[in-house]
């Protein structure tokens, strides 16, 4: 009886501590001046990868090294990323050899997958995402909505909560989302540092989001 109470109290204390740490990590921070930063990009299948590579086209070489995370069954995205990096290097011959890496994790959710099994596969993805995110320790995580991004962003958040590293999480909602956020968007709206939407209707519904116009 006494042991159960102590256990419950300990669990409660840990939960409170985690909640406080989460609040500390999520509140706005002043930008730390820097000359370069490592970038972790979550590329989902098909259109997600195409869109996120469009966003990366204009980024300077200061965003290096670039780590790409794709689903383990997604060969097309790997191909697109390699082409993108080769084209980028060709356009900028004076720059150093492109430093980029492609990592693979299991999908969080397949198209038409049931919600219950999605919870289980997402937990499994989390189990694998945290060691990967911990190893990479990026300065910035960039994603645009595939299910793969939720475990990665939560892992990045955990790095901050555990005091290992503060990672900036930037979420750009896909241009497909005109009136409603995606499921990933609804989850990460509360957990990201900057949440960017591309249609004014979403900006009206979510005033705390950032609207820059159409950026892809």
């Amino acid at each position: 009886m006494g042991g159960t109470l102590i256990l419950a109290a300990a669990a409660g204390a840990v939960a409170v501590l985690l909640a406080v740490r989460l609040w500390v990590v999520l509140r706005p921070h002043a930008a730390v001046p820097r000359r370069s930063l490592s970038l972790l990009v979550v590329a989902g299948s098909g259109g997600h990868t195409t869109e996120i590579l469009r966003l990366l086209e204009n980024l300077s070489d200061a965003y290096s090294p670039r780590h790409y995370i794709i689903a383990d069954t997604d060969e097309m995205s790997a191909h697109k990323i390699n082409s993108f990096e080769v084209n980028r290097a060709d356009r900028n011959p004076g720059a150093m050899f492109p430093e980029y890496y492609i990592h693979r994790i299991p999908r969080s959710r397949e198209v038409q997958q049931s919600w219950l099994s999605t919870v289980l596969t997402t937990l499994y993805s989390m189990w694998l995402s945290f060691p990967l995110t911990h190893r990479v320790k990026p300065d910035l995580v960039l994603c645009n909505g595939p299910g793969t991004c939720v475990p990665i962003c939560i892992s990045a958040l955990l790095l901050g909560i555990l005091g290992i590293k503060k990672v900036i999480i930037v979420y750009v909602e896909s241009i497909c989302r005109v009136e409603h956020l995606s499921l990933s968007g609804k989850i990460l709206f509360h957990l990201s540092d900057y949440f960017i939407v591309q249609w004014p209707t979403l900006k009206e519904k979510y005033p705390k989001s950032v609207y820059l116009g159409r950026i892809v």
Partner: protein
Amino acid sequence: MLHTLGPGPAWGRAVVALRRALPSTTRPVLLGTLPRRSGRGRRALPPPQAPSRPASLRGTVSRERAFSGLVVRATPAVGHDDPVPCSPSLVCDTFFRVFAWSPSSCGAISFTTYKDSLKEDLQKADLVISHAGAGSCLESLEKRKPLTVVINEKLMNNHQLELAKQLHKDGHLFYCTCGTLPGLLQSMDFSTLKCFPLGQPEKFSAFLDKVVGLQK
């Protein structure tokens, strides 16, 4: 039962990229190409003109022929377990069955697999028929091509429909389902479509540089 498209605009060959718009038994991407059109500008798209027919087809073209040629591109859907044989005959059979088109209405048919880029095919196209994925829509619209999108009704929350509806509302494309495509091809008027303004990824990179504290 197959039927020809009937008297209507003679398009030449159509660009058809229907990723996952077809039933789950095949999930291919189909692609056709059109002869090059001359003259592009930032104004409303001109009405279609009858293209010249290849020498091999002269004398055999009937009033019902809608395309002088069709290039079919097919790839298996990424990350799904159904085995997709993706043979040329299976893909073409599915294509003609789903859209209730006669093979004789499509002229010479050729078959290709995945390409790095559709740029060349889009450049030569007079008409693009695509799934409503963001990347496909953006690529076609940026090339100032008349675009019709086919909605995949199986996607979660059908975000493709959201984007298609908004772009149609803004006057940039037409949209339909597999069943309504033949009817739309006969009735649509491309002179009503408006040019699509380009996105501004430089706004995103400027915003990101600022929030991460990147010094020039």
